C-alpha cells in the first residue's frame, strides 16, 4: 500500500483518543466518530465475550481501500479506522472510526459509509461465547453460521 495508512488491525486495546489526534486540521470544523462496543446480548442470547479472527494481510489491504474510497467520495479532511482482533469482554471497544471534515454532513456520511463497508467487506470474523456454554461464528447480519 502506497501512502499513509488509515486502517489498522489492533491486537491490544484501541486508543481512540490517540487516533482522533490524527484527524485535527485547521480547516476542519467537524469530527464524527463511531465506536463499536461488545454487547451483552445478540439475537436473544446472553453473550459473555467474543473473539475476532482476521485474515490480516487482506483485511489491512481492504480496510485501506475503504478508507481511501471514503476520502475520495466525501468532502473529508482525514479518516481513520482501527479494528480489534483476539478476545474481547463486554463493553470493550471492538472497532473505532473517525472522520474530520470542513462541514458536518460529509463527516457523518463518510463515518457511516466506512463502518458499513468495513462490516460488509473486511475479512474479520466474530465468534460469540454464550452464557449457555455454546459459541458460534456469525454472519454479517449477526445470525449464526449454519451448524
Amino acid at each position, binding site marked *: 500500500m502506497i501512502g499513509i495508512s488509515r486502517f489498522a488491525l489492533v491486537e491490544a486495546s484501541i486508543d481512540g483518543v490517540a487516533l482522533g489526534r490524527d484527524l485535527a486540521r485547521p480547516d476542519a470544523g467537524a469530527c464524527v466518530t463511531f465506536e463499536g462496543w461488545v454487547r451483552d446480548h445478540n439475537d436473544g442470547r446472553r453473550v459473555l465475550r467474543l473473539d475476532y*479472527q482476521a485474515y490480516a494481510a487482506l483485511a489491512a489491504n481492504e480496510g485501506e481501500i475503504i478508507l481511501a474510497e471514503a476520502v475520495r467520495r466525501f468532502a473529508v479532511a482525514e479518516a481513520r479506522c482501527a479494528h480489534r482482533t483476539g478476545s474481547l469482554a463486554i463493553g470493550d471497544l471492538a472497532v473505532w472510526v473517525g472522520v474530520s471534515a470542513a462541514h458536518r454532513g460529509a463527516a457523518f456520511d463518510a463515518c457511516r459509509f466506512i463502518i458499513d463497508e468495513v462490516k460488509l467487506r473486511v475479512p474479520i*470474523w466474530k465468534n460469540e461465547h454464550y452464557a449457555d456454554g455454546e459459541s458460534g461464528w456469525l454472519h454479517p447480519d449477526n445470525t449464526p453460521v449454519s451448524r
Partner: protein
Amino acid sequence: MNLRVLYFASMRDHAGVDAERVTTVAKDARGLFGELRARHGFVLDAARLRVAINGAFASWEQVLRDGDEVVFMPPVSGG
C-alpha cells in the same frame, strides 16, 4: 502442484487446522474447493464463500500456480 491453504472462522473449525499444505491437480480455485470440501466435510456452499489468492480477492476460475496461498472465506462479521 503444491499450495498453501488458510482457514478462518467456521472453515477453520471444520478443517481442524489454521493452514495446510495441499498437493493437487486442480486447475482453479473451484476445483481445489471441491477436493477440500470432500475431504473436510465443509457445510458452506461455494456460493456462500469468497476466494482470495495470495492476499487478494480472486475469482473461482482463477488458474492456480505452484506456491499459491489460497483462502476460502465465509461471510465476514467484523464490526
